[in-house]
């Protein structure tokens, strides 16, 4: 008869410790204070906290978006992923939404966020010429005319005109691959604004 050697951790004890640790972690995760995340919400969303209360993460808006501008974050909530595509304010996502998480909006005044140029990474800012790069200016000329060059050839963004559609981020030729290095990544990013127009 082989007898199991006495180990310090029996299976029951291991399960007890693992269960205790995971339930403490779960309790902390459930009861932590609500944080307004920096992720961009789809157009028509209310403030982030009430959006998270009313979204059931069914994924209809992600499937409905023809531009593939919406994607899931880790918790399954939709957010605007400008690396995949840009928002054309067609309202497909608000029509698909079964709950009131995405409300109908006016495409003329709706605003997702504001684009911000990182001057360290931008090619035109580094080379200082009127002709180099400027892809974001070309793409924005057809949409909002929010990006313009100054006399040195550096692109600037007019926050009053920019509606945060993300077309400049999609077309920016800098690699999206960051690898944890702040010097890499796209030269334009969309930053959320507090007031989201309806």
């Amino acid at each position: 008869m082989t007898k199991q050697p006495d180990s310090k951790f029996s299976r029951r004890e291991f399960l007890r410790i693992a269960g205790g640790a995971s339930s403490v972690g779960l309790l902390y995760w459930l009861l932590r204070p609500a944080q307004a995340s920096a992720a961009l919400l789809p157009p028509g969303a209310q403030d982030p906290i009430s959006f998270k209360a009313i979204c059931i993460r069914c994924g209809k808006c992600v499937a409905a978006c023809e531009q593939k501008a919406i994607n899931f974050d880790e918790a399954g909530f939709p957010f605007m992923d400008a690396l995949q595509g840009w928002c054309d304010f067609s309202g497909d996502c608000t029509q698909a939404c079964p709950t009131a998480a995405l409300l109908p909006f006016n495409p003329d005044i709706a605003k997702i966020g504001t684009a911000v140029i990182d001057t360290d990474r931008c090619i035109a800012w580094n080379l200082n010429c009127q002709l180099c790069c400027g892809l974001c200016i070309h793409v924005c000329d057809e949409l909002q005319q929010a990006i313009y060059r100054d006399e040195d050839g550096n692109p600037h963004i007019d926050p009053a005109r920019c509606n945060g559609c993300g077309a400049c981020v999609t077309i920016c030729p800098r690699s999206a691959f960051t690898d944890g290095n702040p010097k890499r990544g796209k030269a334009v990013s969309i930053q959320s604004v507090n007031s989201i127009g309806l």
Partner: protein
Amino acid sequence: MTTRIISATKSKRRKKSRFQLKLWPTVRFFFTIGFFILIGTDIWNGSTCVVDIGPLQIACPLGVAQLIAASRKIIPALLVGALVSLGLIFFFGRAFCSWICPGRWIFNRGPVKNSKPWKYRAWVQRVIVGGVVGAAFVCHNPIFCTICPAGVVCRGAIAAGNGGSVFPTIGWYTMLVGAEWATGRSWCRDMCPLGAAFSRISRWNPFLKIRRAEETCTPCVACQRACPEGLNLSKDTDFSTCTKCLECIAACPRGAVNVELLQIK
């Protein structure tokens, strides 16, 4: 003499192959695949959470309950969708669990050895459902939807089509299978809040019931071994947790399992 016996056993072994294709599991598998094909090709718009079938919107009742608890708002269209799905549960019982839920093909692979359902199963199920809705109320967030296996698979499929990450799907399923292995419990039978909610409603279901033929049934445990919910047709009286997977029909050696469509007394 001995050679004859050996040859007889050999022929017996050859007849009974280990991997048999059973009828009902195959039908259920293609039903699940067909549901996801209909969703993926936009013939039906939506996911397992909310699906539009023509003008009809069907919504997950547990998700809607959590949503009302979390946001303190009532959305009439969604409430109607939840009532429609409650009606479907009334007609078909817990059939969602084995006919549509993709988790059925990953968890609950036959009863685990020396594992029994919870002792006061109905009360454990009520506590699980109440806990899920209560947690949504406390956290202002339908949190079970984050980890719901059916919803996680839908989100993973949509994300895969959109160039997103399928890591949450794979990670969560790996965690649940690991927990099943470590604790000897079955997710679908003991833990799943969806299954718990559906089986509480499916108590009132008068249609589609599995019954034994009392003349031919000699009480044994063949059906209990085959049943992923651990139900025994000759012993148990409450079949509210039956998922209509019809595995007991093939398992019964005497063919004593009947599917009764309508039972109104």
